[in-house]
């Protein structure tokens, strides 16, 4: 086990002194400050007219006129973040020709890959945590009052889910770094997957729904419902959608799911906010799927790396 921690500390050190860390941290810092500042300004005008609950959470989800909220920014940016720290984990060792030197040392192959994964994961977790704390601090300064305990709990949950989400993309990046020999190919493949889930998935869902339930000009209500139902089911295969639903439920206490599926399954729609436990219950399936996907990616990378021939 000693080898794992040696690898971990070395990689962590590399990560924090790397250029990619600086660039990513700068971008995310900039967006966090801008989005929370703008939404705080937006909020104060709203608050004067309609005092409401959970003001602090709105800092994360209220978009300004031309700027996305931090939560929706993270939905698009987190994949890139994860992939950037994973896409060259293994193949760069091959192209640098360090792989046979390292593996000739008394170190288990799995310690090596685990140490690398863990180091990037911790780097990302530290990054996201410090950004979240930064937003809370800014919020206190801008709004003039601290968050309530319940709000803090929800923010903590939001952070946890974001870290898992980033972890999934990191695992995907690491997997590609094993499957593709060249770092360029694995970077392109990772970005292709990211773009697919972020943009094309919506089109694909539409196409599939149109195929299965064609909507003519005289389509019945039933057909419409079925059409949106299929669309939503397809979208559920995208980690981006899953993440979006999960954080919406966590950060918006009145959220009970969107779309036709939620409408059909919920017999009654109370308008009062849910407790944190109830919100968790709403997102439990999504959360499980997210964790499972990350684990599957990692398991495949693991299996692929253990049987990989070392010939460089």
């Amino acid at each position, binding site marked *: 086990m*000693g*080898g794992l921690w*040696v*690898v971990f500390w*070395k990689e962590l050190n*590399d990560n924090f002194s790397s250029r990619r860390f600086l660039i990513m941290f700068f971008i995310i810092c900039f967006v966090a400050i801008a989005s929370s500042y703008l939404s705080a300004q937006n909020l104060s005008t709203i608050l004067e007219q309609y005092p409401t609950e959970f003001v602090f959470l709105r800092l994360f989800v209220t978009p300004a006129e031309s700027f996305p909220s931090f939560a929706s920014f993270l939905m698009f940016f987190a994949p890139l973040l994860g992939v950037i720290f994973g896409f060259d984990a293994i193949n760069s060792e091959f192209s*640098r*020709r*360090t792989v*046979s*030197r*390292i*593996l*000739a*040392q*008394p*170190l*288990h192959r799995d310690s090596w890959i685990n140490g690398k994964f863990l180091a990037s994961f911790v780097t990302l977790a530290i990054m996201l945590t410090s950004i979240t704390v930064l937003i809370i601090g800014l919020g206190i300064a801008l709004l003039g009052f601290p968050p309530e305990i319940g709000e803090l709990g929800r923010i903590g949950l939001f952070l946890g889910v974001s870290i898992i989400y980033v972890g999934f993309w990191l695992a995907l990046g690491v997997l590609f770094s094993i499957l593709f020999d060249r770092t360029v190919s694995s970077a392109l493949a990772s970005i292709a997957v990211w773009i697919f889930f972020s943009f094309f998935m919506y089109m694909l869902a539409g196409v599939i729904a149109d195929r299965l339930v064609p909507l003519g000009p005289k389509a019945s209500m039933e057909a419409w419902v079925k059409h949106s139902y299929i669309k939503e089911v397809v979208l559920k295969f995208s980690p981006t959608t899953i993440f979006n639903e999960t954080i919406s439920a966590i950060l918006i206490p009145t959220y009970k799911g969107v779309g036709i599926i939620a409408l059909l399954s919920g017999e009654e729609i109370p308008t009062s906010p849910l407790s944190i436990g109830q919100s968790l219950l709403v997102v439990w399936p999504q959360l499980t799927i997210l964790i499972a996907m990350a684990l599957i990616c990692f398991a495949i990378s693991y299996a692929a790396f253990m049987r990989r*021939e*070392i*010939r*460089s």
Partner: protein
Amino acid sequence: MEYIVEAKGLHKYYDTVKAVNGLNLYIRRGEIYGLLGPNGAGKTTTILLLLGLTEPTSGEIRVCGFDPRKEPLKVKRLIGYLPENIGFYEDLTAWENLYYIAQLNGLKGQEAEKRIKEALYEVGLKEVAHRQVKTFSKGMKQRLGIAEVMFKDPQFAILDEPTSGIDPEGAHQILELIQKMNREKGMTILLSSHLLYQVQKICHRVGIISKGQIVAEGTLDELRIKTLTEGKFQFKVKVKPLSEDLIEELRKSKGVIDLRKEEDFLVITSESDIRSEIAKRILDSGFELIELRGMDYTLEEIYLRYFQEV
């Protein structure tokens, strides 16, 4: 005789390519063994098999008494490895690169620092220890690789093409370092190379590998007699003046099997070492003996002869 490597009937197939095909290899403790063969003969694959970095399709291997398939970490703790075309973490300094390897071997603190410092001094990289490796030349990287093997102080070091792509001066330095490790620390060394001259210079025993098999093995002298002269003794004489009478006389001498003219020399093949008798005969007959020496066949001639036959 104690063997540090015992490999019997090794096979390694990549899809349909037979990289190693029934190889037997025995390396004695304390020797420098040269693995010699053209590119693609199976040298690197053999080395990867010894290190346990790749699994044999079939066959038995024991390295330092352990099976690298079953107990890879025990083997790796005792072996030092210098890969062909070595690579380092370019953004780290020479020192940091070595310290990482030290930590992976469970060395830390003062002990690690002392060993690394000594090794860097030995290979002449002390002055640049805290420079990033990306500023290093190929020869410097290669010497850094040697330093890595040195500070680990293994029982057995595997050096894959340690001098490839390095100028003669640098290659000379590296060969001296290898000899020094062998002499001073008693390290057993497996040296793979296609550069015959170097192998000839420092190796105690040589194995010629072709198509995944060891086709000839032994000390240089043994190989010479086995492959070139079919067990006979051969030497050259230079005489002044060179007359046909003398040639006839020498041809009739006892033990001479063959005598032929090669430029200014007479090449004599005999059953045993009859050089002093021949010399006496020449002088007694009133001729001047300018030169008499054994045929200094180089490894290259042996090597070429071997691959011509195949």
